[in-house]
C-alpha cells in the first residue's frame, strides 16, 4: 500500500467540505431509510445529479454514505412501525417490533444502530485490507455455485417461517411464479405479461416489496385502530431500563460478527443483495442460539443479526466493483454511473491509475460510518418520538409515502395498481398466516436462480458429473438437501403434534 497516497487521502477525508458532504449523504439516506416507500436505489438515482457539483471524492462518498444511511435508517421504521423501509430490514421487524411493543423501543433501536455501524465498519475494513487483492476469488463462484447458493438460500429462508410448512410452500410457490414474469432472458419473448409492456422487465420489485411489507401493514394497523385501539402501537414510556446495556451488548456481539461475515460473503458475490444477506444471517443466528424459541418474540440477537448483515452487504458489494468492475447489486451498479459522470472508470484500473481517490473513498466510508453512529444515536431519540404521534396521523402519512415512492419509480398509474394489488395480497397473507417473508424472498431470488440454473445446465451440456469438479457447488447442494430433509421431518412432527392435540388450531 502506498503510504503517501494514504496520508493525502486521510487529509482530504478530513476537510470541512467532506464532513458536510458525507454527513449530508448519511442524513439523507437515514431519512430515506426511515420512510417506507422511498428506497435506496431510488434515492441514489435521484441524488446522482446533485453530485454534479461536488468533487469526485465527495460525490462518491456522499452516495456511499447515502446507501449506508438507508440501511441503518430502515431499521427505525421496521422496529417502530413494523413497516420496514427496505426489504432488507424485514428481518429486523421480526424481533424489533415485538421488543418495541414490550416497552423497549429505544433498546431495539440502539441494538439495531450498533449492529448496523459495527457491521458497516468491519465490512469496510475487510474491503480495504483483504478484499480487493482477493476480488478474483469471486470469479470462482460461477453459475453452478451461484445456482447452488441461491437454492440453499431459498430453502433455508423458507424454513425460517415456522408455521405450517404447506402454507410456506404455497407462499414460496407464489413468489417463484410471480418471479418468472417478464421477458425470457434468452429468447427475449414475453412470459405472462398479457400484453402489458410495463411487465416486460418483470413485476416491479419495489411495488412488490412496498406493497407486501409496508402498505399491507398499514391496512392491518388501520383495522386494529378500529377494533383494538388500546393495544396497537408502540409507546414510548421512558422506562429506566429502556436502553442498551453492557450485558446485552456482550450477548449480541458474536451475532454481529457472524452477521458481518455472512453480509460480507453475500455482498461480495454479484447479484445476491442485502435481503438475502439479512435473512440468511437471521436464520443462522436462530439456528446457533441456545434458545431459538425466543426469536420472533423480541430477541435482540435477531435485530443484531439482520442489521449487521444488511449493512455489511453495502461495503462488501464494492469488492467486486473495485476489484473487477462488476457491481455487486443494484446500488453498486448505480455507483458505476456516478463514477462515470465524474470521469472515472471504475474497476481494477482504479487502484492503478487513481490510488489517492480510492483511498480517499475508503477514508470517506469509515467517516460515513462514524457520522452514522452519531447521527443515529441522537436521531433515534428524535425518531422515537414518532411513537408519540397518534396512529391515525402516522398511518395516512406512511400510506402517502408508499404511493409517492411508487410514483417516483416512473411506472405511472400502472405501478399504483400493482402496488395496491400487492398490499392486498400482503394483507391477506398476514391475516391468514402465510409467510410473506418466504413469498418475498422467493420472488427476489427466482430470476437469479433461473438464470444461473439455466446457464449451468447449458454449460454442463446436461452432464451431472461436472459437479464433482465443483466442490463449492456440491457443498451448497448438500446443505440444501439437508435443509430440505430437516424441513420435511419438521412437517411430520408438527403434523403428529397437531393430530395429538384435539381441536386446537
Amino acid at each position, binding site marked *: 500500500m502506498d503510504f503517501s497516497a494514504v496520508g493525502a487521502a486521510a487529509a482530504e477525508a478530513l476537510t470541512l467540505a467532506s464532513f458536510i458532504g458525507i454527513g449530508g449523504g448519511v442524513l439523507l439516506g437515514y431519512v430515506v431509510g426511515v420512510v417506507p416507500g422511498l428506497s435506496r436505489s431510488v434515492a441514489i438515482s435521484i441524488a446522482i445529479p446533485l453530485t454534479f457539483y461536488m468533487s469526485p471524492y465527495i460525490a462518491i462518498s456522499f452516495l456511499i454514505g447515502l446507501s449506508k444511511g438507508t440501511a441503518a435508517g430502515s431499521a427505525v421504521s421496521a422496529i417502530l412501525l413494523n413497516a420496514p423501509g427496505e426489504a432488507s430490514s424485514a428481518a429486523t421487524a421480526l424481533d424489533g417490533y415485538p421488543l418495541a411493543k414490550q416497552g423497549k423501543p429505544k433498546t431495539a433501536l440502539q441494538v439495531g444502530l450498533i449492529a448496523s455501524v459495527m457491521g458497516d465498519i468491519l465490512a469496510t475494513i475487510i474491503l480495504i485490507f483483504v478484499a480487493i487483492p482477493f476480488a478474483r476469488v469471486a470469479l470462482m463462484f*460461477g453459475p453452478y455455485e451461484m445456482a447452488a447458493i441461491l437454492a440453499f438460500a431459498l430453502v433455508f429462508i423458507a424454513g425460517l417461517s415456522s408455521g405450517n410448512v404447506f402454507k410456506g410452500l404455497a407462499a414460496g410457490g407464489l413468489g417463484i411464479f410471480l418471479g418468472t414474469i417478464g421477458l425470457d432472458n*434468452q429468447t427475449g419473448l414475453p412470459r405472462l405479461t398479457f400484453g402489458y409492456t410495463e411487465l416486460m422487465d418483470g413485476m416491479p420489485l419495489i411495488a412488490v416489496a412496498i406493497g407486501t411489507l409496508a402498505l399491507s401493514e398499514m391496512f392491518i394497523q388501520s383495522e386494529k385502530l378500529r377494533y383494538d385501539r388500546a393495544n396497537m402501537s408502540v409507546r414510548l414510556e421512558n422506562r429506566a431500563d429502556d436502553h442498551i446495556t453492557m450485558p446485552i451488548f456482550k450477548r449480541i456481539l458474536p451475532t454481529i460478527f457472524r452477521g458481518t461475515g455472512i453480509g460480507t460473503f453475500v455482498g461480495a458475490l454479484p447479484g445476491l443483495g442485502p435481503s438475502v444477506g439479512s435473512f440468511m444471517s437471521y436464520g443462522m443466528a436462530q439456528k446457533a442460539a441456545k434458545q431459538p424459541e425466543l426469536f420472533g418474540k423480541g430477541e435482540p440477537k435477531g435485530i443484531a443479526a439482520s442489521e449487521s448483515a444488511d449493512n455489511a452487504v453495502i461495503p462488501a458489494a464494492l469488492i467486486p466493483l473495485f476489484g473487477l468492475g462488476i457491481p455487486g447489486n443494484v446500488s453498486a451498479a448505480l455507483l458505476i454511473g456516478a463514477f462515470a459522470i465524474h470521469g472515472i472508470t471504475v474497476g481494477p484500473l482504479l487502484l492503478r491509475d487513481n490510488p489517492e481517490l480510492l483511498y480517499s473513498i475508503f477514508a470517506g466510508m469509515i467517516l460515513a460510518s462514524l457520522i452514522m453512529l452519531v447521527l443515529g444515536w441522537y436521531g433515534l431519540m428524535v425518531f422515537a418520538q414518532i411513537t408519540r404521534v397518534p396512529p391515525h396521523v402516522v398511518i395516512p402519512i406512511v400510506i402517502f409515502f408508499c404511493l409517492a415512492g411508487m410514483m417516483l419509480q416512473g411506472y405511472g398509474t400502472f405501478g399504483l395498481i400493482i402496488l395496491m394489488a400487492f398490499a392486498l395480497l400482503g394483507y391477506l397473507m398476514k391475516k391468514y398466516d402465510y409467510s410473506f417473508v418466504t413469498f418475498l424472498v422467493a420472488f427476489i431470488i427466482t430470476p437469479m436462480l433461473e438464470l444461473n440454473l439455466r446457464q449451468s445446465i447449458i*454449460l454442463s451440456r446436461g452432464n451431472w458429473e461436472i459437479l464433482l469438479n465443483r466442490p463449492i457447488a456440491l457443498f451448497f447442494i448438500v446443505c440444501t438437501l439437508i435443509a430440505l430433509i430437516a424441513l420435511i421431518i419438521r412437517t411430520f412432527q408438527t403434523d403428529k403434534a397437531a393430530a395429538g392435540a384435539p381441536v386446537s388450531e
Partner: protein
Amino acid sequence: MKHTFAAVFGATMLIAPMALADSWQPERPMTMVIGFAPGGSTDIQGRVLARTLEEHFGQPVNVVNQPGGGGAVALTRFLNADPDGHTFMFGVMLGLTFSPIVTETEYDIDDFRYAGTLVGGQFGVVARGDAPYQSFEELVAHGKETPMTYAQQLPMDQAIMELIADQEGIDLAIVPTGGGGGMAPLLLGGEVDFAFSGGTHAQYTPTGEMNVLAFLTRERSPFYPDVPTLVELGYPYAMDDFRSFFLPGGTPDEIVQAFEDAARFAVEHEPFVEVTVENTLHPIVFMDAEETEATIRDIRTANEALMAN
C-alpha cells in the same frame, strides 16, 4: 462549424430571436425521456446531454427515466406525448428495430419522428485476453476442434452466432447472461469461451483482460481500428444500434429541424463528447433526421431477415 454555431447562439442570447427568428424555440421547461434505468450508459449520456440542451435551447431540461423492455415501455408511453417539442426521447433504436419483431408492441416505426443521431453503438464479440485464440479466425479454427460456449445478450447476436457455428461446423452451446454486468464474470471466470459485448469490453481491454475479436457493427469501431467486422471476415451479418432524438408522431417539420440542429450542436459540445467518448466509451456518430429514419428502417429489415432464419 462549432464557432459559427456558438456565434449564432451567442447572438440569440443577447438580442432575443433574430438569427433563429424563423426556427422553433421551446417556451417552457422540456422533458427528456430515457427508456433505461439511471446509471446505465444511455442515462449517463442523456443527463449530460440534458445540460447541453439547456445551453442550446435556453430552457431547463428534466430527465425522466422510464425503464423496461429495452426501451419498449418508454416508447409505448411516448405514443401519448404531445407533438409540441417539449417532450422528447433520447432513445436507442433497438426498441424499434428489434422489439416489434419478437413481441407485439403497441407502437411501430411509423408512430414517431426521428430528429438526428448522436451516438453510435459498438456491439462486438469478445474473448479473454489469455485465450488460445487472439482473432476471430483463430476462434473458428479452435471451434472446429473442440466444443465451445458462448454468452449471448440478445436473440439477434445468438442468431448470428448460430448461423456462423452451423456454417463452420462448430459445436456451440449458447447461454443467456442477462446483460453486460452478467457477461463479465462469466467470461473472466472462464465459464464461457467467448461472449457478446454491448460495450462492457471497453473497461477490460486496456488491461488486456479481454480482447475484441470482431465487431458485429457495419463499420469498425474508431477505438479499435485493427479489429475487423464480421462482414469483412466474410459473414454477411451485422447488428447495429444508434442513440437518437425521437419525437412524437405528428411533430411539425420545424421542430424536427430544431432537434436536428440541437443534435448538431451537441456532437460538437465538449462536455457531451467527453462523457460519451471517454467515460462511457461510445463513438460520437452524427446523422441528420432523414438518415436516422432511413437507418432505423434498414436495420429493422436486416433484423427481420436475421430472425426469420
